[in-house]
């Protein structure tokens, strides 16, 4: 068990492609650090650099105080769970789990003992003599975990281990993996593109985009205080509604399309920096759950403002309704490539029809095709600089 320090880690491929750029991260002893981001953001490359499967172009990697840049994978004392499990097909489950131990030349009896203990933790005892080809996906995943746990390494690396499982199994295994990691207490770097896994499993979450670290903090912190538009739109499902808005002269109200929303004095006091954006364009973010539709459980607050939208689609989830609505505001997309018809917007934003999603109580009065006026507390609004994408704070 040891903390892992990534110091300005950079990876540039021979063809010049920079996959990871000046990546700084500290994984504390026993912590489960989730690296999350869209496909191609460099998270797997970072993990492979930690594993020793990719050479580090620049920067330093340390386990505790030992520099690991030039240490070969077999000497790093790490264990990795691959996305496709990478189980040895010609060996039994027991041999798979015990392989690393037998490579270390431990006596056979001890190997058998440890394998048995690990199999018990994972509920694999009755399959110890089967080959991986005879197991289901979930069982194979557990064998892959067993192979990692049994070694009691310094660091665990997990590369999207749950992405090959079906939805229900994934939910179960999420809890299993977290439970096992807590029990074993090994520093873990967990790579995923699924922000739900990031929120539920991580002690801390590191959001990546295009090889750069965007934000690293506890899950709730990343959710409540995203540092830029990308993080705001990435974390949370359905994702945050982002619209282009224009602040008025006194920065106490903003125009969203044709609607004007007033900011209470309290909000202005919390975010004095907004004054600098008077009379200019900003990006406003509204989490779906902040929007309330008129219904038996909704209580309107004194400072609440209204946002009207035409209801396009209502998805009933049982515990809540997802109301897809549209306004005449300009929607901002946090992710993806900039399209050719984007007009003068920076930081990877493209404009779409002013569509949004609201998460409301199941009994809310919304009619398909009609107009609903949502109420929301302005203190729950998010504000971003439209050219840099950074959150406007203080």
């Amino acid at each position, binding site marked *: 068990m040891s903390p892992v320090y990534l110091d300005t880690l950079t990876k540039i491929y021979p063809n010049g492609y920079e996959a990871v750029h000046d990546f700084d991260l500290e994984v504390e002893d026993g912590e489960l650090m989730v690296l999350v981001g869209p496909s191609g953001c460099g998270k797997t490359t970072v993990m492979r650099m930690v594993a020793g*499967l990719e050479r580090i172009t620049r920067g330093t990697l340390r386990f505790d105080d030992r520099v690991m840049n030039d240490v070969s994978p077999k000497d790093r004392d790490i264990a990795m769970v691959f996305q496709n499990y*990478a189980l040895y097909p010609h060996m039994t489950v027991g041999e798979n789990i015990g*392989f*690393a131990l037998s490579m270390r030349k431990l006596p056979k009896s001890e190997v058998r003992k440890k394998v048995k203990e690990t199999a018990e933790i994972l509920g694999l005892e009755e399959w110890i003599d089967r080959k991986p080809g005879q197991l289901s996906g979930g069982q194979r995943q557990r064998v892959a975990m067993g192979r990692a746990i049994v070694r009691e390494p310094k660091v665990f690396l997990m590369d999207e281990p749950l992405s090959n499982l079906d939805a229900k199994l994934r939910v179960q295994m999420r809890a299993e993996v977290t439970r096992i990691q807590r029990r074993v207490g090994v520093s873990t770097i967990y790579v995923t593109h699924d922000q739900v896994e990031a929120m539920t499993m991580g002690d801390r979450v590191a959001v990546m985009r295009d090889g750069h670290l965007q934000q690293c903090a506890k899950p709730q912190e990343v959710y409540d205080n995203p540092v830029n538009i990308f993080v705001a739109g990435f974390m949370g499902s359905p994702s945050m509604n982002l619209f282009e808005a224009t602040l008025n002269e006194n920065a106490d109200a903003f125009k969203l399309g044709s609607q004007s929303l007033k900011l209470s004095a309290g909000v202005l006091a919390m975010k004095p920096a907004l004054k600098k954006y008077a009379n200019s364009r900003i990006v406003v973010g509204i989490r779906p759950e902040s929007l309330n539709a008129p219904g038996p459980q909704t209580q309107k607050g004194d400072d609440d403002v209204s946002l009207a939208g035409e209801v396009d689609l209502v998805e009933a989830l049982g515990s809540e309704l997802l109301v897809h609505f549209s306004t005449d505001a300009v929607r901002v997309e946090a992710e993806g490539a900039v399209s050719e018809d984007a007009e003068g917007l920076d930081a990877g934003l493209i404009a779409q029809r002013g569509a949004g999603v609201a998460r409301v109580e199941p009994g809310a009065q919304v009619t398909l095709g009609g107009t609903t006026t949502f109420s929301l507390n302005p203190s729950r609004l998010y504000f971003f600089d439209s050219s840099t994408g950074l959150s406007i704070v203080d």
Partner: protein
Amino acid sequence: MKIFNRIWTKTLGFIVLLAFTAFFIVPVIWLLLAPTKTDHQLIFGNPFSFGSFHNLAHAIRVTFTYQDYALLTWVKNSAIYSFGGIAIALVASIPAGYALAFTNFIGRRTLLGITLFVMIMPATALVLPLFLEANAVHAIGSPISVILPFSFFPFGVYLSYIFYSSSVPRDLLNAARIDGCNEWNVFRKIALPLARPVVALVAFFAFVANWNNFFLPFVMLPSNSNYPLPIGLQDLLSSTPAFNPGIGGDVPILRPELAVATIVAMAPVLIVFLFAQRSLVSGMLAGATKE
């Protein structure tokens, strides 16, 4: 109407299959029946008739005792040359395919291209330069002059390369490295055991090519006691009065005896094929299934 079409198609198909089967199998049946007849019966009798066991015993005895059990010596030689060649071919091609598939070295692509190119070169074209080489090191007449060229098998390298690059995921080897294997152990404990299907494939193809090879041993081995089966068969042929009217001898080698020798030459390949069949099929399909 549809049913009529189906019956007609099936019958037509059956007839075509029957015709092709007959085309290939009739000579084999003739060959199997030949040792049971006398030379005269073979020419003038019904090709599918069964002669007698007495004839069969005589033919077998004469063939095997020819030149002091030369036939057995030839079988032994063929076995040594073929298996020797296979062993070296395997030791060379399996690791070569592995290296071509998983390591990155300068000239890798060129090497792959050269392997493909050499694969399609006819082996006969190489016999003369090989002879000159063997002569230069005074290896003419020794088994090594045959075994070493036999073990040169670029097709095996290519098969091994295809197998490794399509059926063994890189992450499997990475997992082994992380588990503490050095490069040699990665090969020995993971890559090699997984190569069982391709070992059978390469061994089979190498065996068939080497067992039937005539020209190379013909050029390299002057002495009768070193002959493999194909050369021996030719020797036998030249002792058959029907094919070589000038020859005379105590007990002449006639066509039934020739048939016995031919069957002895064919049998090992058949047996090997029967045993290797299971591995061959799974080996051919190796690329289709991924872990």
